[in-house]
C-alpha cells in the first residue's frame, strides 16, 4: 500500500546560491550597506594600524640602511674602581689599523668645560651640552654633514673655533652663522664655524659643541684621551672587527671598553611595537564586535520581514537546509562585503599616510587576509541564529499568519 521512493535530494547550484544570498542585499541596499559599515570600520582600523606600523618600520629600516649598519662605536667603559676608564690616546690609530676597518675617528669629552651663549648666563644652565674634542674626518663616519658654515679643518682645529651639533645649536639659540659669531666656552670666546645636521646614528654628537683636539689641549687643558671612537668596518667584516675592538682599543684593560653598533639599537627600536598599536587594535576589535551585532540584528529583522518569502520557498520545495544556507550565506556575504570595504579603506589610509612620510606602503598579509577572514567568520557567527530561525519557521505559519 505504501509507495516507497527515494526522491533525489537537490543541492542548490553555486550560481543559484549566489543569486539567492544577494536577494536581501539587492532589495535593501542602504540597510545592507549600513550594517556592513560596522564591520568595515573595524577591519579598516585593524588593517590601517597594522599597515601603518609595518610601513613606518620599513621606512625606518630603510633610513637605517641608508645610514649604514657598519658603524661601530668604542667608548670608555667603567674601570674596576667604578670610575670612568680612559681610552689610551693611541686607540684611534690602533683601531684604524685593524684589517677591515675603513675609517676610525674619535671625539674626546672635555671635562670641566661648558658652553654658553654669553658669559652672563649662570654657570648651572649648561643645557646638558658637552664640549668635545673632535677629529677632522668625523662627519662622514657618523653619516652627517654640515647644515651651515664649515666643519673644523687643520687650521681651525688649532684655534678657538667650534662647530655645533644640531641640538646644541638649537639649545644655544643659534640658527645661522654670521662672521664673528662666538660663544662662551670654558671661560673664553670661541668662534662658531658651522652647524651640523642631526646625526641619527650618533646622537651624542647632536648635543655636543665640537672643537679641535689641538685647541682643546691648548685652551681648555684637555688631556688628549678620546672618549668615543667611531669607525666604519667593511660590511662583511663587521662582526670580526667587533670582536677585536676592545682588546685593540685598550690592550691593558679590555674590559674597560664598551663596543656598540648604533644601528642595531635603532633596528630594535623599529621592531618594538608601539603601545598605541594595541589600543587601536582593541578599538578595531570593538568596532568589529559592534558590526557583528549589527549584522545579527539586521538578519533577525530580515527573517521576520521575509516570512512569506521563506514560506513560499518552502512551498516551492526548499528544504530547511536550503533556507538555512540562503540566510547564512547572506550574512556571510554581508560580512565579506564589510571586510572587503574595510581592507580597501585601511589600505587607502595606510597608502596616503605612508606617501606623505615617503615610506613604502606595506599592508602585511596577515592584516588583509586576517581582516577578510575575521569578517567572514563574524558574518557566519552573526548569521547563524537568524538562519536557524528562518529554517525552523514552519511553512504554514510563514504563509498563513501574515
Amino acid at each position: 500500500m505504501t509507495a516507497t521512493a527515494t526522491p533525489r535530494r537537490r543541492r542548490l547550484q553555486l550560481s543559484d546560491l549566489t543569486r539567492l544570498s544577494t536577494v536581501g542585499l539587492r532589495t535593501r541596499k542602504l540597510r545592507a550597506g549600513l550594517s556592513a559599515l560596522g564591520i568595515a570600520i573595524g577591519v579598516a582600523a585593524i588593517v590601517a594600524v597594522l599597515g601603518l606600523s609595518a610601513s613606518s618600520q620599513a621606512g625606518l629600516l630603510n633610513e637605517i640602511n641608508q645610514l649604514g649598519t657598519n658603524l661601530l662605536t668604542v667608548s670608555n667603559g667603567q674601570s674596576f674602581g667604578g670610575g670612568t676608564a680612559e681610552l689610551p690616546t693611541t686607540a684611534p690609530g690602533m683601531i684604524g689599523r685593524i684589517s677591515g676597518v675603513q675609517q676610525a675617528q674619535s671625539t674626546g669629552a672635555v671635562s670641566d668645560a661648558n658652553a654658553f651663549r654669553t658669559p652672563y648666563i649662570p654657570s648651572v644652565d649648561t643645557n646638558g651640552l658637552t664640549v668635545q674634542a673632535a677629529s677632522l674626518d668625523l662627519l662622514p663616519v657618523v653619516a652627517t654633514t654640515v647644515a651651515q658654515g664649515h666643519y673644523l679643518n687643520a687650521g681651525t682645529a688649532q684655534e678657538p673655533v667650534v662647530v655645533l651639533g644640531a641640538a646644541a645649536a638649537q639649545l644655544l639659540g643659534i640658527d645661522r652663522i654670521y662672521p664673528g659669531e662666538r660663544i662662551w666656552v670654558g671661560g673664553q670666546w670661541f668662534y662658531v664655524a658651522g652647524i651640523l645636521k642631526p646625526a641619527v646614528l650618533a646622537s651624542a654628537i647632536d648635543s655636543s659643541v665640537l672643537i679641535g683636539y689641538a685647541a682643546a689641549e691648548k685652551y681648555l687643558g684637555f688631556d688628549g684621551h678620546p672618549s668615543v671612537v667611531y669607525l666604519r668596518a667593511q660590511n662583511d667584516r663587521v662582526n670580526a672587527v667587533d670582536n677585536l675592538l676592545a682588546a685593540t682599543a685598550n690592550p691593558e684593560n679590555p674590559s674597560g671598553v664598551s663596543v656598540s653598533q648604533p644601528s642595531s639599537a635603532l633596528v630594535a627600536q623599529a621592531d618594538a611595537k608601539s603601545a598605541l598599536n594595541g589600543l587601536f587594535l582593541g578599538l578595531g576589535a570593538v568596532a568589529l564586535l559592534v558590526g557583528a551585532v549589527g549584522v545579527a540584528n539586521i538578519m533577525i529583522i530580515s527573517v521576520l520581514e521575509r516570512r512569506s518569502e521563506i514560506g513560499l520557498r518552502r512551498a516551492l520545495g526548499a528544504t530547511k537546509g536550503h533556507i538555512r544556507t540562503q540566510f547564512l550565506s547572506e550574512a556571510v556575504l554581508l560580512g565579506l562585503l564589510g571586510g572587503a570595504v574595510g581592507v580597501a579603506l585601511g589600505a587607502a589610509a595606510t597608502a596616503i599616510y605612508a606617501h606623505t612620510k615617503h615610506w613604502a606602503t606595506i599592508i602585511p598579509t596577515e592584516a588583509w587576509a586576517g581582516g577578510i577572514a575575521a569578517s567572514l567568520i563574524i558574518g557566519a557567527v552573526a548569521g547563524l541564529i537568524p538562519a536557524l530561525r528562518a529554517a525552523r519557521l514552519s511553512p504554514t505559519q510563514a504563509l498563513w499568519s501574515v
Partner: protein
Amino acid sequence: MTDTAPPAPDNTAVAACNGVAIDSAGVPVLDVDGVTKSYPGEPPVQALREVNLTIGQGELVGIVGPSGSGKTTLLQLMGTLDRPTSGRVRITGLDVATMADEDVAYLRATRIGFIFQQFFLAEHSTVLDNVADGLLYAGIPLTQRRQRALDALELVGLAERPHARPTQLSGGQRQRVAIARALIGQPAIVLADEPTGNLDQATGQSILALIDQLHQAGSTIVVITHDHAIAERMRRKVEILDGRIVADTGPAAGTDPRRQPLAGPPTHAPRAAFGTPIGEEPS
C-alpha cells in the same frame, strides 16, 4: 529528469473502490485517507476530523467552506506543508508520513504547484525569474528554468512581458505569473488557495477562466474557496464544514478531458506541452 517509470504501488483497488478516475498507472494523484488534524491548545482545536478525499488525474475540484471550516488546513495537508495528526496523505501514491522532510520538500518541488491569494511574487526580480523560481529547488539549471518559464508564461497569456517587474503588472497579471510559477514544473496537482481573493470581480472571472482552460488542457487543479459561486464552476464540488466533508459531488463521469476534447484552448496534456515530464521516480 528523463526517467519515466512511475511507481506502481498496489492501491489500484482502493482507488477503484472509491470510483475515482485514476491515472494510467492506477494511482490517484491525491489520496487523503482518514486524516485528522488537531492543533494544541486548551482545549485542542480539531481542524479536520477523519477526512477522506481522493482526487484523480485531470480533475478540477472546488473545496468550499466558511472560514474556520478547516479548508485551509486541508490545503496545507494536501500540499504536504504540514503533517496530519493521524491518517495518511499520498501524493501520486507516495505516502508523505513515511518520507523524510527533505524528500517531502522534493516532492513539493516536483509534483505540487501552489497558487496563493497574495500571489507572493518577488518584487525585485523579473516576471521570468519569478516563474523560473518554481523549479529552483528541483535541481534544474537556470537557463533551462528560464526557457521553461517562457513556455509557462505563454500558457497563461503573459509571454510578451517576461522582463517586467511584478510591480508593473496588474493584480490579474500578477496572479497569472503566480499560476505560471505553479505550472512550470508540470506538477501532478495544483493547489489554489482563494486564487481570486485579492482580485476584483472581472479579473477574478478571467483567472477562473484560465484555471478552467488549464484543467481542460489536462492539469489536475484543486481550488479552495469560501465562495460557493466559484465552487459551482468547478467540475467537482466538495463542501467542508467543521473539519468534515459534508458534501461531495464526486468525480463526474467523463471529466478526464483527454477523453473528451474540447474546442479552443490547447487540448494536449500539459506534459506534452512542456517536454520531458519531471517528478517521476523509479520505484
